[in-house]
């Protein structure tokens, strides 16, 4: 157990912000905190890095009470990202990311390597190092905020509504790259959100709070299928069986059949042959690194003649998109088979509409049995 909250209570004057909270958080997992405004999410988070001291109770990290650690040192070992990001406006992106390593007296050479590495991780061009926060978009600032929090490779990452101020489209993109990043770094993440869809999409576990108490704390799947009470049900909303679909990631549904792969300069004739033989409608064009460049589609004309059309900007599904997102992309583009790519644009295979339907049917069956 990495983090343990034991009977944590926090009172501000007479008001109780957090009441007798008990929680265990496992290493390498994402725990989402959700609940109405003022229910004590931020307060709980800040008690972990001692920005707020609990009125009573104890917080253990690796079995050691945080009170026994020096607050400043503790904070340097825990990454912290907030909604308003709080990038230092007078520091360049480089200097922002370098804050904690410099506090830890790293050598400048090591810092530089680390900054490069982190910019790559959060998919920002190395040229961003010399920019200032003012010159970045909200999404880019958020990525820098994440990189800064990760700079000294902390084991724990605290994030307080990090994507709250980002528009929905960019938020989806950030989610995808966030999951991609977490796959690589496997941090223990505590993440506060207002958005139940965000909680379901990102969380391994969800902690639902109300008025300073923990209402339900379980695996995401368990919460969706067995909400503890009406409060949780209301929070989840009515379309629970569809929401459960969003638990499934596209990458679990990738298939490697029903399409052909080709290089940018391959021969047309033999490609057509190959497509006919495998009954494929699409051929995906990949470069030497396996990145998707475009696709070719075999279209049958009214005359019965077949023609090859090139589409250099096909709709793609990110492998971390959930099935709801994949489905809506299919409906929008009118395709029943879409290519799946990794965060860096690498082709992974395809996802088929029929497979998503099969999953919907299965989920409905499961809920009906439960309801009966």
């Amino acid at each position, binding site marked *: 157990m990495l983090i343990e909250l034991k009977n944590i209570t926090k009172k501000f004057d007479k008001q109780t912000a957090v009441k007798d909270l008990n929680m265990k958080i496992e290493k390498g997992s994402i725990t989402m905190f959700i609940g109405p405004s003022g229910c004590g999410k931020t307060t709980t988070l800040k008690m972990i890095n001692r920005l707020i001291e609990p009125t009573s109770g104890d917080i253990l990290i690796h079995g050691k009470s945080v009170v026994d650690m020096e607050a400043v*040192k*503790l904070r340097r070992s825990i990454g*912290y990202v*907030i909604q*308003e990001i709080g990038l230092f406006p007078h520091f*360049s992106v480089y200097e922002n990311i370098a804050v904690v390593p410099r*506090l830890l007296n790293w050598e400048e050479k090591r810092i530089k390597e680390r900054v490069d590495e982190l910019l790559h991780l959060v998919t920002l061009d190395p040229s961003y190092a010399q920019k*200032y926060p003012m010159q970045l978009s909200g999404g880019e600032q958020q990525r820098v905020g994440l990189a800064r929090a990760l700079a000294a490779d902390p084991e724990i990452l605290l994030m307080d509504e990090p994507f709250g101020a980002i528009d929905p489209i960019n938020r989806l993109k950030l989610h995808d790259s966030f999951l991609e990043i977490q796959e690589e770094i496997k941090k223990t993440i505590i993440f506060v959100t207002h958005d139940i869809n965000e909680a379901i999409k990102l969380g391994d576990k969800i902690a639902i709070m109300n008025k300073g108490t923990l209402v339900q704390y379980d695996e995401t799947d368990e919460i969706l299928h067995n909400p503890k009470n009406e409060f949780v049900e209301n929070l989840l909303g009515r379309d629970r069986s569809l929401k459960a679909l969003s638990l499934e990631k596209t990458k679990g549904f990738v298939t490697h059949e029903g399409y052909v792969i080709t290089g940018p300069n391959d021969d047309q004739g033999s490609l057509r042959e190959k497509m006919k033989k495998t009954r494929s409608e699409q051929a995906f064009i990949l470069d030497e690194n396996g990145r998707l460049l475009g696709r070719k589609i075999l279209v049958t004309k009214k005359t019965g003649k077949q023609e090859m059309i090139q589409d250099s900007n096909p709709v793609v599904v990110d492998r971390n998109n959930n099935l709801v997102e994949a489905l809506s992309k299919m409906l929008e583009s009118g395709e029943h088979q879409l290519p799946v790519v990794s965060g860096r644009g690498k082709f992974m295979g395809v996802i088929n509409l029929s497979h998503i339907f099969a999953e919907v049917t299965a989920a409905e069956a499961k809920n009906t049995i439960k309801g009966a």
Partner: protein
Amino acid sequence: MGFWEFLQAYQDKIILEFFRHIKIILFSLPFAVLLSVPLGFCISSRPKMAKIVIYLSSVLMTIPSLALFAIMVVLLAPMKLGLGMTPAILAITLYSLLPITRNTYIALNQVSPKTIEAARGLGLSSSQILWKIKIPLSIPVIMAGIRNALVLGVSVATFASLVGAGGLGYFIFSGISRANLKMVAIGAVIVSGLGIGVNYLMLLLEDVLTPMGLKNKS
């Protein structure tokens, strides 16, 4: 006597008084800054005290310059410091109190609490937050306060000649008493020019000292 001949005739005197004028301001500046900036820091986290300090220093500013000089002379007379540089420097320092203290106070309080929270969350100590975050982010506004105080000082120092400290006020006041308009005009023009020049130089300095990321050009 034409204007240019007049200028030539008074050339040495003009240069002398010009440098005296600057000397008065330059002597006042360190006192003003060393008094006001720490005062601004001191009140920055004490809103009640800030209210009082800023109120008192704005009261100081409402005293007409001439009267303030007179008060200085009276107050310093028992120490035999009633005439010369001392009352002038003291008066200008007092006038600078408000613009610098107030701007320092505002500057430190305009730093976003979220920025400070992020800094605390990353593990900066209180003194690191002060030196690495608060002060650099406050410099442009503090410098603007110092600039205002200096420009104000240039005009207030005109009265220094009345207490025997010399300066460009000499031309204005002597000119008036002798009904010599050329003399008044020369004094007025040079004082104004000096004010504009000081303002410009301080703007340049402000620009140099403002951290790159805060400048409004991309």
